[in-house]
């Protein structure tokens, strides 16, 4: 999301104002927020940051959010996760599906897929492509992105997806 004032930097300050019951939202970059006299010096913890991000997105959530079932393994509901910022078990990543993915995308600079270390033996168990092969492609992908060779990068990304 771009800053609504300068329209060039990423909006990192999301301000919700409620005046006489009227709710309005502003999305600003750090510099413009400070120029507007909004104090941004306080350091939020990552969990607080996540909770506030989740709260800011609350209004635009689809109505089926309320009906979303909780996780059978741990009992965590998406609402409970929204208020606390912490998941209840590994299974929640699947149970909360797209709703969680959009949260992850927001907090992880647009990324939604892991690149990096894979535990030894993970591939053997799941009978997938040996991780060294995928890893090799992932490294090539990193180099391609670094060199701004996006055509090659897209090709590599698709290959990696297929192998996964």
């Amino acid at each position, binding site marked *: 999301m771009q800053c609504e004032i300068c329209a060039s930097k990423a909006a990192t300050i999301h301000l919700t104002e409620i005046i006489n019951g009227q709710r309005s939202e502003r999305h600003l970059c750090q510099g413009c927020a400070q120029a507007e006299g909004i104090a941004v010096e306080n*350091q939020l913890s990552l*969990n607080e940051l996540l909770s506030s991000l989740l709260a800011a997105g609350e209004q635009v959530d689809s109505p089926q959010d309320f009906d979303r079932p909780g996780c059978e393994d*741990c009992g965590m509901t998406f609402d409970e996760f929204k208020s606390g910022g912490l998941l209840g078990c590994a299974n929640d990543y699947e149970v909360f599906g797209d709703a969680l993915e959009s949260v992850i995308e927001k907090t*992880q600079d647009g990324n939604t897929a*892991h*690149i*990096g270390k894979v535990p030894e033996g993970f591939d053997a168990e799941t009978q997938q492509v040996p991780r060294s092969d995928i890893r090799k492609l992932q490294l090539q992908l990193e180099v391609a992105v670094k060199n701004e060779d996006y055509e090659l990068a897209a090709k590599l990304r698709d290959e990696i997806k297929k192998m996964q």
Partner: protein
Amino acid sequence: MKLTDLSSRTTDWFSGKGSLADIVISSRIRLARNIAGVKFISKCTNDEKQNILTTLKHNILSLEAIGECLFINVAQGSHIEREFLIERQLISRNLAAGKGPRGVIITKNELFGAMINEEDHLRIQALAAGMDLENCWKRITKIDDMVSEKTKFAFSRKYGYLTACPTNVGTGIRVSVMLHLPALKMTEQLKKMFDAVRDMGLTVRGIFGEGTEAVGDFFQISNQVTLGVSEEKIVEYFTVSIIPKIVSYERLAREELLRKNADLLDDKIARALAVLKNARLISSHEALFLLSSLRLGINTGRIKDISIQTVNEIFMLTQPAHLQINSGEILSPEKRDSLRAQQLRARLN
């Protein structure tokens, strides 16, 4: 090995040695991991937490390659003991304030630590003095491999290592470098630089981690994104671009101060030394600021008869919990201020 074995000396990562040591105090990498098939901490009962603690404690302590270790039961420790561990960066505030069975394993040199039942089941960290993230990564990934031979970690092909908070998912890595930036502060360039650092997706924190204010010109810079970027890439980014750039800005600011405003610099250093050598009561907050000036004085060659090692040692040993553990009793803030001033006079005169 006991806590009191540690309390009389400073820790290895704070030795004042290592690469770029005039500005980079220490490097740290921590990995967040959870046991596959076990609920995350927020949904665990105390019995379940106890099982996690027992399993991980056994699996880590049985790794001979790590060397001599100490397990500290944080749940049973006193408030002062927990504060002491925070001051040495061996545990987080979060673990100290947590509930139920939890603990930490540390090696004798304190360069490796494993927090059990913090926000995730396991958080392992490797520390080094100065700028040495590559070494931290080599050590921590090796230990991670050894632990994962005994403990299956929650991992998905799509999201990588699964963590309680999605802000850690993927690699679960947090790379942190502690910096001393007094000249950038004096020349009022700090804000500009931190804005740039934040624009690059990094976080700046105070010396004692998340949510703490920066004291005495010491700052920690860490990565925020843990998903979609490999561990090696993050380490390389810090090692090749980010940190050398900040270090060069701080060096330039120091040179500029010496060239254009040596009187201001010398005055600050001399006043700091005068107070440290003569005060009868001094708070830890004030001492940190003054020791920061002293450190700058040594690193710019203005003070020649005090070593960085001495400053680091005083810095750590005059922290509130260290003072109390070493004196063997709970002290009121006034008593601590008096004892701190006494120790400073003894070490610096």
